């Protein structure tokens, strides 16, 4: 027999988060509550004498499936608005009624049945399951292998986007840049003599003129740059020695 307190805890842990499917607005919140539901179901499996299935439930559902859901949610954008217009009139109420009716029907039928439960739970340990899987159901296992491979290849095919234009090589990219008139080499780095925080000081060209392009655009917008003129003056002043401030 099953511990009553444990049953009610599992029931609360599964039904309450599952209701978020109907009432929560954000898909990420729903996914996280479904993770809770999966954990609750894993607990139920362990309670019912199926420890192997409980662990598989955690690994497959909370670990792989729900994370895949979150991944896809990230990919399509978390802030996808759900549109609440009714394309079919009264669909919401009909749907709710149908689902509630289905639930009431199932519950009323099941509640009327009484099957004497076996006294001891069968052992759902991995070795017992494995024995059954690879003896009686070995053909099914093979077919499931095919199914998984087909599904993986199908997902690859479905999400694959064929390339419309041939890929541009590095050589072509560089050639185009030069044709437009860009400098073929790197921009000069900022900083003269690496003094203090030298990122804010423009580099000097061979004539001693500061090169404006060598300082980060962001620092320029924040006006946190220095002119570089003072360093040029230092360059030309023979009375100052290296290391003077």
């Amino acid at each position: 027999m099953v511990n009553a307190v444990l049953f009610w805890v599992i029931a609360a842990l599964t039904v309450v988060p599952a209701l978020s499917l109907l009432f929560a607005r954000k898909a990420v919140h729903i996914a996280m509550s479904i993770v809770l539901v999966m954990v609750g179901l894993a607990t139920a499996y362990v309670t019912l004498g199926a420890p192997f299935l409980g662990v598989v439930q955690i690994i497959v559902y909370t670990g792989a499936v729900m994370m895949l859901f979150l991944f896809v949610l990230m990919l399509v954008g978390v802030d996808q608005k759900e549109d609440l217009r009714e394309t079919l009139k009264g669909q919401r109420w009909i749907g709710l009624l149908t689902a509630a009716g289905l639930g009431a029907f199932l519950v009323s039928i099941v509640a009327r049945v009484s099957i004497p439960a076996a006294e001891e739970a069968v052992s759902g340990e991995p070795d017992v399951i494995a024995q059954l899987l690879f003896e009686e159901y070995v053909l099914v296992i093979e077919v499931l292998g095919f199914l998984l491979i087909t599904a993986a290849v199908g997902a690859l095919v479905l999400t694959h986007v064929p390339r419309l234009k041939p890929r541009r090589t590095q050589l072509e990219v560089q050639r185009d840049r030069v044709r437009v008139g860009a400098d073929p080499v790197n921009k000069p780095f900022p900083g003269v003599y690496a003094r203090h925080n030298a990122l804010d000081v423009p580099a000097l060209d061979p004539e001693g003129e500061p090169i404006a392009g060598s300082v980060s655009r962001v620092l320029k917008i924040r006006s946190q740059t220095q002119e570089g003129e003072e360093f040029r003056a230092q360059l030309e002043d023979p009375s100052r020695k290296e290391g003077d401030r």
Partner: protein
Amino acid sequence: MDPINFVILAAILFAIGSAAVLLRRNAIVAFMGVELMLNAANLALVAFSRIHGEIDGQVMAFFVMVVAAAEVVVGLAIIIAVFRARQTISLDEPAELKG
């Protein structure tokens, strides 16, 4: 407590999942409803395995899990493909097939 209560719990979860499929427009949320229904079926299988003292129910639940995993992979790939084509995952948008 009688393990048949877990079957009732499974029925309730199945109803919630089906309500989500019927009511929600967001394809991913509706898909999570499908997942919940599959899990409810699993719970019923495991509960019956406990009631009858047979292990086959657990093996069937295991098979359902594998099939559900494959289904999730393909389903989410389809959702991504639809999203790429029309920048939405609303279930009401792709209405070209109507007669």
